[in-house]
Structures are given as structure tokens and as C-alpha cells.
């Protein structure tokens, strides 16, 4: 009984910590919720940008990792947070796929947030085991079309970026492969290097080291333009899959109803962070670049989000997958 009381008291104390209303924004530290575990790629992006925004805003930008349920737990928490600009969300492409993947989503990604600007589109690469027969992307396309289910494609779990990339690839080729889900890209990469699976699509951060070490074979970039770090790698569009474009884009969100002045202030701080040479340099290490100037406004972010939601809906429906 004592335990339960203590547990409840503790939980309550944490849940309602501070609800003061600020006069001049920001007058206290800002929490940016990252809906994934610490140390992951999204977390890294958030911390790099957060550090720079701290200097601009004059208040500490804290990163809080609220993982679970494919990012919907953290996003749902911010959707219900007070719209005062002190609780923000930094989410990736999952914000656009959640409405199609989750039938019982307790919030609406399109309408429950104020978009504060896009951050960075992290490119992905289509990679294969060194034991996999095809030598280049044309051979892969022919091989997958001929062998269909005999080809194994690994991904990091339902709804992950690697899963989306694979679904789009199969939809474009109209050839279903055998999908092997893993819990995270780490174990999937392990089996790809070990030759247990044939193909995978993962962000450059995870694949560059393995490609350079000769442990896996790089076939193509999933972005419209070639990747800076690997300029010789053909894009899937160049290989004949027109319209094929997958990048893990990231965006900053505030809860619906956050005053426009606050959103603009955040957007300006984000814009400045994306021009920060330190951030640009660290992004380059990650194999990515900041969003170009013309894509950084809240208005563009809003329109881009609805376009992405519309883009993924048919792909996910065709594959018939749900994450709940």
C-alpha cells in the first residue's frame, strides 16, 4: 500500500511540474520531445539543432526522449501539451505515415500541430549483402522482378523508414519480396553483413561505414539528387524508377493553438541554426544537409506534410500493413 501511494505521488509530482504562463517568450527552458530513443539518428539531429537554437533563443533547449509505439507516443504527448511554445516536437517522416499506419491514432498529425519548419532530409541508400548475386542496380531490378519472393528484404520494423523505402520499391517494381522485419536497423545490418538477408534500405549514416569497409554493396541512392558523400552512386530515379524519392525528412512542431509570434520566433531560430556552420558541418558527417532556404518556412512545412501524407497513403494501403 505504501509502495503504491509513493508511486502515485511520485508520478503525479512529475506529471504536473510547472505550468506557469510566460510573458515574454522564451522566459524558461524549452523542451523538445524526440519520439525515439536517445542516441538514434533523430535524437542526434535534434540535439545538434537544439544546441544552436539555445544560443539564439537565450534559453536552454532541452531534449526529452519519449520513445515507443513508432514515435506516436511522443507525438501524442506534444499534441496534448499546452500551446505555449515550451513543449515542442521534433519528428521525422513518421509524422506523415502515422495516419495511414495507425487506425487508432489518438491525435491527427495534419491538424493537431503548428508546423515550425523543416530541418533536414536524411538520404537513404539501397544496399545489398556481398553474397547477393546482382552487381549493380539494373541487375537488382531485373533479379527482383524475376525472383520476387525468393529475394529477402530486411527492415527495421513496421512503419520504419526502411520499411517505407522497401514498400515503395516493391510498389514501383510491382514485385513483392519477402520482407524480414527486425527491431531496429542494428540487428538488420548485422544479418545483411552476415549474408542472412539480401537487400535493405537504410540511411547513409548507418550504411556509409559498411560500404566503405567493403562489407556490403551499395546499389542506389533513394533521393532525387545524388548523395554528396557518394556522388558516383546512381539514384533510383536515374535507374528508371521515375518519381522514386524517399528521404527521412525532419520537422519541428508546436501544439495546435501556439501563438503565431512564438512559432515565427522558433522558425527564425531554426533557420539560424540551419545556417550555423557547426550544424552544417555535423550534418555533413551524418551524410545530410540542412533544408534549402526556400523549404524552411512554416507554410512550406504545412504544405509538404499534407503532400507526404497523400503520397504514402496509397503505398501503405497497397501493402496492406498496419502498425496497430
Amino acid at each position, binding site marked *: 500500500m505504501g*509502495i*503504491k501511494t509513493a508511486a502515485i505521488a511520485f508520478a503525479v509530482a512529475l506529471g504536473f511540474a510547472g505550468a506557469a504562463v510566460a510573458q515574454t517568450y522564451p522566459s524558461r527552458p524549452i523542451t523538445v520531445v524526440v519520439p525515439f530513443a*536517445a542516441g538514434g539518428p533523430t535524437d542526434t539531429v535534434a*540535439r545538434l539543432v537544439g544546441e544552436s537554437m539555445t544560443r539564439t533563443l537565450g534559453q536552454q533547449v532541452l531534449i526529452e526522449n519519449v520513445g515507443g509505439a513508432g514515435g506516436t507516443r511522443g507525438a501524442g504527448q506534444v499534441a496534448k501539451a499546452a500551446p505555449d511554445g515550451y513543449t515542442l516536437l521534433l519528428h521525422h517522416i513518421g509524422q506523415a505515415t502515422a495516419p495511414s499506419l495507425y487506425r487508432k491514432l489518438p491525435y491527427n498529425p495534419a491538424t493537431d500541430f503548428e508546423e515550425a519548419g523543416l530541418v533536414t532530409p536524411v538520404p537513404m541508400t539501397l544496399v545489398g549483402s556481398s553474397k547477393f548475386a546482382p552487381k549493380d542496380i539494373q541487375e537488382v531490378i531485373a533479379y527482383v522482378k524475376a525472383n520476387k519472393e525468393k529475394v529477402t528484404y530486411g527492415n527495421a520494423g513496421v*512503419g520504419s523508414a526502411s520499411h517505407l523505402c522497401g514498400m515503395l520499391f516493391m510498389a514501383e517494381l510491382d514485385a513483392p519480396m519477402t520482407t524480414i522485419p527486425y*527491431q*531496429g536497423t542494428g540487428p538488420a545490418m548485422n544479418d545483411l553483413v552476415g549474408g542472412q538477408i539480401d537487400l535493405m534500405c537504410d540511411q547513409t549514416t548507418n550504411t556509409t*561505414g559498411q560500404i566503405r*569497409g567493403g562489407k556490403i554493396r551499395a546499389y542506389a541512392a533513394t533521393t532525387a539528387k545524388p548523395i554528396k558523400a557518394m556522388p558516383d552512386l546512381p539514384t533510383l530515379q536515374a535507374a528508371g524508377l521515375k518519381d522514386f524519392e524517399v528521404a527521412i525528412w525532419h520537422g519541428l512542431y508546436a501544439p495546435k493553438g501556439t501563438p503565431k509570434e512564438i512559432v515565427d520566433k522558433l522558425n527564425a531560430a531554426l533557420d539560424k541554426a540551419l545556417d550555423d556552420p557547426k550544424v552544417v558541418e555535423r550534418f555533413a*558527417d551524418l551524410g545530410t544537409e540542412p533544408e534549402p532556404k526556400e523549404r524552411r518556412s512554416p507554410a512550406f512545412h504545412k504544405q509538404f506534410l499534407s503532400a507526404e501524407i497523400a503520397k504514402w497513403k496509397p503505398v501503405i494501403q497497397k501493402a496492406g500493413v498496419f502498425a496497430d
Partner: protein
Amino acid sequence: MELLDNLALGFSVALSFQNIFYCFAGVLLGTLIGVLPGLGPIATIAMLLPITFGLPPVSALIMLAGIYYGAQYGGSTTAILINLPGESSSVVTAIDGHQMAKQGRAGAALATAALGSFFAGTVATFLLAVFSPPLAELALQFGPAEYFSLMVLGLIASVTLASGSVVKALAMIVLGLMLGLSGQDIYTGVPRFTFDLPELADGLDFVALAMGMFGISEIIRNLEDEHQRLLVAAKVKGLMLTKEDFRSIIGPVLRGTGIGSILGILPGGGAMLSSFAAYSIEKKISRTPQRFGRGAIEGVAGPESANNAGAQTSFIPMLTLGIPSNPVMALMIGALIIQGITPGPNVVTDKPDLFWGVIASMWIGNFMLVLLNLPLIGIWVRLLTVPYHVLFPAIVAFCCIGVYSVNNNNFDVYAMAFFGILGYVLVKLDCEPAPLLLGFVIGPMLEEHLRRAMLISRGDPSVFLTRPISAVLVPLGADPAGGGWPPPPRRPSSRASSRRSCATRPRRCARRRSPWARPWAATPSAGASPCARSAPCC
């Protein structure tokens, strides 16, 4: 020769003043968070990640590595003293370690854990330095079929974790397997047994389950019987190991180190599996397996050596291939990426100062840990003499903080409270929690690898017999003699009831130098009194 050059480079990096400082900071922090229940290395490293932004990559990795293996030292402390394993790998330590503490041998148990860990850490670091690349290749040979066979072997052998009835142990394993089913199906995304609670979408949390089943239920049990509690506190004695103790732990430490070094390389739960495998083997080869579960020092020495060896060798896939073998390694890869180093097979050649510096720092770190931990034993043991009405609210508070910190989720705190009560009920029914926890951990992995193996083989079950490593593992599990089945149950009655009925008896027994040295009758003396049968517990 090349190895010597590399090691010289490594030590020149690790012995710089700055790096010695970060190594010490890491192992000290690791020990502290290991001691605080629930607050594990994952949460700590995640919190410290931003601080490492400003450090050189080598220093950052040395400190984070120190936190990880330091926590393996500290994690056993609470398991032994208050039956509270904060880490999956110290669940096994709690079984015999806490019994030793109850018999007044907490000092000996802690010293065994520290010395075993030190030896294992030193040897495993040597393996890491010499055999990293071939060992990493070996780990890659483990595909889904091999993992499945290994998990089957593990599940069969997990019956040995129980010291009482085999039927009850089986029931607990099945209950653990069923609890492990809760959460989203990773293959289809379908929620299973989540009761529409979003908090259950990722399944129950291991830390909440373990701390409830062990720590909280232990507190309820202690509050029920204060008399016994006082008796335990009064018995604290002998902080160091006797000669007999040393003799009986040498074998288990060596075997534990070997098992831990090998299993640690395998991605996914290496350290946990190794500590439990070491326990099973010690119990299996012991001439007196009935002592296990009642304070056998071998049951502490083997698993503690194994989990520390596993903690060191789990760096192998990360450092040589850039592939994380567990969530902690994934965080370290994150730290490297932030530093601008792309982890991969080239790190060893491109950044030799990083690779060898970290390895050299592990020797230094392990040495610091044993110097740090041996003097602390006296302090920890004195903790047991703190009045329980002061101690238990503190334990509960730390448990709540620890469980909450894992996922920043209130639900886990309620789950811990629930499992605390369930654990108490189960103990009253003479069902032991350790097999349940093992079933909970192994169950999801078993399913995951079975389904993945079948997907890859396109439904052909013969893969388990045609792939060489798996073909060796399967018969080991199928053969009860080789698979580590426990000896037949020795007694129908329970541990708890016999302990209570002997509560006043073991005074003289406790003062005896080495009760273990006595040769035990190999056959169960079915008609003997409960006191005679529970004699090893003193």
C-alpha cells in the same frame, strides 16, 4: 609484434591524464548507477550523451564504456544486499547472492562478485585485443536459425534456475513466456494482449517486471516478518573471503569468464544469457546442486564473471564492425556519429588510437573498479544494519525513480507495483521468480528468431538441422542430460517454509568456517526433517 605496438599506442592514449580522469569518472558513475536500482547504463549514457559533444572522441568513448562495465560491477551490489537486480544480467546473482547475505555472508558475496568481475574483465579485454576480427566474423555466422536453437537450449536449461519443484519452475517459465507475448507483433504490427493501452504497445518493461518481482515483493515479505529481518542484520560478519572460498570460486570464475566471453559477442542479450548459462553449468557440474538457490558461492562467482566478461566482449561487434549488439552499444555508436566518426569495419585501421585507446582503458578501468569496490564492501554491508523502517522507503523511492527513468513513463511504475504484489503471492505459493524472468526475456527472442528463420527458409524447418552451428545446438537441447536439466527435485516442501521453521537454528551453523566443504549425500533424504534439508542455507 604488431599487437605490442598497438597496445603501446593504446596505453599511450589511455594513460594521458585527461583520459585517466574520464575513465575514472566513467567507472565511478557506472558503479553508482549500478548500485541505484533501475537506473541503468542506458538511461545514464543517454543523459550524458550531450556532455560528450565537447570531448575528444576517445575520451568520450572511454567514459561511456566505463559507465557500461562499471554498472556491471555495481549491479550485483543491490542484487546481493536487497534482492534487487536492476540489470537483467544480475537476476541470476540475486538468487544465491541474496541468500548469502541473509546468512551474514554479504561481504563474501560482494567480494566474490568484485574479484570474479575483475578477473573476467581482464581476460575478456585481452581476448578483445587479440581476437577481435575473427570473433566478430564468428558472431556474423549466427543467423536466425542459430539463435533459435540457442534460445531453445536456454529455455530448457532455465529450469535449473529454480531450487524447488520442477513443475512449478516450468509453470513459471510458461507464465514468463506469456507475459513476454504482450506488445506489438514485430512482423505484422498487430497489438497482442495490450488491452488497448498504448503503454503496452511495446510490451511490458523488463526493469519494471524484475524490480517488482524481486525488490518490491522482497520488501513486502520482509515487512511481514520483522523478526527474521533483525536476525539477518545481526549476523553480518567476515567481509573477506576465506581460503576455502577462494578454492571454491576459482573454477566457476574461469568457466564463467569463458562462457561470458563467447556469448557476449553475440548480438542481443549476450551478457544476460551468459550469466544464466554460467549458473546452469555450475549447478549442473556441482556435486552438491542442492546448495544452489540457498547461498552457494559458486552461484555468485560464475554468473558475475560471465556477465562482466560478456560486457567487455560485447564491444567486439561495435568496435570492429560498427554493428551494435545491444542498446548500450547503439548509444555509443550514436556518440561516435555525433563526433563525426562513422562506425564501420574501417574504424580499426582509420582510427587506431580510438580502438586501442578504448581497449587499453578497459584494463585500467577494471583495475580502478576493483580498487574502488573492495573498500566499498564494508560500507555496503553496513547498509544492512540500517533500521529497516528507514531503509525500505528509500529502496521504494529509488525503485520508482529508476523504473520511471527507463522510458519516462508512469505506467512502468504502476506495473512495478503490480508485479511486486504478484511476486509476493507467487513466493507464498513457493514459485520462484527467476525462471519467470528468464521466460519473459527468452520468449520474445525465441519467437522472433523462429519466425525470421522460417521466413528466410521459406517455411522449411530443416534449416535448424542443416546449418552447422544450429545442428550442434539442437541435440544439446533435446538431450536432457546435456541440456542442463536439474537433478530430480529433492524435496516436496518449500524453501520459504523450511527457512522459517529453521529460523532460530542456524546460529552455530553460521559460525562454521565453510559449511560447503561438507560432502552432501548425493541422494535425496526424503524422510529427513525440513531443518536437515535446509541445512545448506546456513
